[in-house]
């Protein structure tokens, strides 16, 4: 059974068919790439899964459970976390606090202990936050305000904040946007490490070095429809895909 399954998922904004009868199945433990030209419906798909925008028609199932139209915090509680195309950190909170507040929200949700639930969290939560900081390479910056971080560090913090909610499926909306090559390589390594640890990842991305290198399978969207799906090497050769990217090769379109 696929961990995430979209069935004829459709979203109309007025007359615009942002996502049009999309069928998609993501298997547990894979890194699944979602690519396509600007405005092809990638971000809308992520937003539909997370419950930000309402679904016009179709179905979203996570681990076999129907989560179509669930509110964002319920989707998160079910085990799906996301990052944003435009970074949305809590700038006035420190790096450590950004993670703690996210970690808390799921970790102690059902805690019977009032003080734990509303005031101090648990010791395990605090330790987990420290581990996340270590993994993100931000341990040295734990007391900095998030607003004062460099751009690449903010990207890393956003990924860490999503991970702090202990998801089983991670939706990354253009995590490499604005990164330099070195940072992209570091991100590549992090994603592989997460996969090793059993995480399933849906990667929406324009940076082809990252997508072609790290993903197991790729689906290509154009005008809200899926025009190709398969292994990265096959996608690169696919004529329909090359046509979608302004008639050129996938790599040259974004070089």
């Amino acid at each position, binding site marked *: 059974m696929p961990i995430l399954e979209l069935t004829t998922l459709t979203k109309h904004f007025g007359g615009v068919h942002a996502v049009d009868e999309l069928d998609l199945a993501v298997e547990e433990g894979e890194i699944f790439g979602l690519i396509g030209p600007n405005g092809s419906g990638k971000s809308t798909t992520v937003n539909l899964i997370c419950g930000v925008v309402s679904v016009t028609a179709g179905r979203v199932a996570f681990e076999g459970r129907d989560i179509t139209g669930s509110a964002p915090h319920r989707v998160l509680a079910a085990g799906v976390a996301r990052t944003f195309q435009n970074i949305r950190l809590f700038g006035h909170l420190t790096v450590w606090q950004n993670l703690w*507040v996210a970690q808390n929200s799921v970790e102690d949700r059902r805690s019977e202990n009032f003080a734990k639930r509303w005031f101090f969290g648990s010791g395990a939560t605090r330790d987990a936050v420290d581990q996340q900081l270590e993994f993100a390479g931000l341990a040295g910056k734990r007391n900095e305000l998030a*607003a004062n971080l460099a751009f690449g560090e903010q990207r890393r913090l956003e990924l860490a904040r999503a991970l702090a909610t202990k998801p089983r499926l991670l939706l990354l909306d253009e995590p490499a946007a604005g990164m330099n090559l070195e940072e992209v390589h570091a991100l590549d390594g992090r994603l592989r490490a997460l996969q090793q640890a059993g995480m399933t990842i849906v990667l929406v991305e324009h940076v082809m070095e990252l997508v072609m290198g790290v993903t197991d399978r790729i689906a290509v969207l154009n005008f809200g429809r899926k025009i190709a799906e398969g292994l990265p090497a096959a996608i690169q050769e696919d004529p329909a895909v090359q046509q979608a990217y302004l008639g050129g090769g996938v790599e040259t379109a974004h070089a």
Partner: protein
Amino acid sequence: MVDFIQNCLDGIMLGSSYALLAIGFTLIFGVMRRLNLSYGPSIMVGAFVGTLVYLEFKANAVAIAAATVVGAVIVGIYVERLCFRAIRRGAAVASMVSSFVIWMQLEEIVTVVFPDRTYFFPPMVTADPIDLGPFFFKVENIVMFAVAAVMTVLLHWLLQYTRFGLALRAVSENPRAALFMGINVGAVMFLAFVIASAFGGVAAYLIVSADGQITPLFGLWATFKGLIAMMLGGMGSIPGAILGGLLLGVVEAQSIWYLGTEYRDLSAYFLLFLFLVFRPGGLMGQLAVERELAATRRV
């Protein structure tokens, strides 16, 4: 000079209660970006609950204070459910208008239940003023300042170090991102309302018991004082609310001494006028706005 300093000290102690009112206002505004006009009237109802407890049971000061705070919180929750929870996704002005209507409702109810309009409110202490060199301090003013200081420190601790406080700050900064991080935004807003009402209830008890009497007009008065203090300090800023409250208290105390009691409120409005002309963002508001902009540019 001695008079001037004495006025400043009196003003700071008086202003500490204004600061509590302004903190309540600014907490709600910061989290919801909405103005709760019936904040004053809801704590007025709390004070009348305190009056009722006094009239019925001849209760002591602690019980009356507790009744005032509990009453203010309950009415605060009532207002949140009616004007803020229900219209959370609607325009901010809709909440403000409905909170204005609830103001009228609360005032009317109190006027009907307490037809004599002005009621005696027992003082918290009956002790002689304390002399300290050339200055003297009323005991109730010292208590007012001490309680306000303790509550402010408590709030600071809450917002800096507890998960609820951090969640509250996360919501006031970016409600959408907070929702995606699993924070129960509705619950945080609700609790912000409860805390604001509790601060208002404490302020109401301190002020009314120092005055020795209560009328339904206290609601109007508290909304105005809280609003002015918040605007002097800068909307949405808690340090601003404290500074604005203290400044308002000092200016009022000076004008009572040098101009006469009848100029107390007029001088407050004149101060607000000066601020709106020369520093419309308030003492800390400009800073808050700049920080906000800087944060959104980078984040």
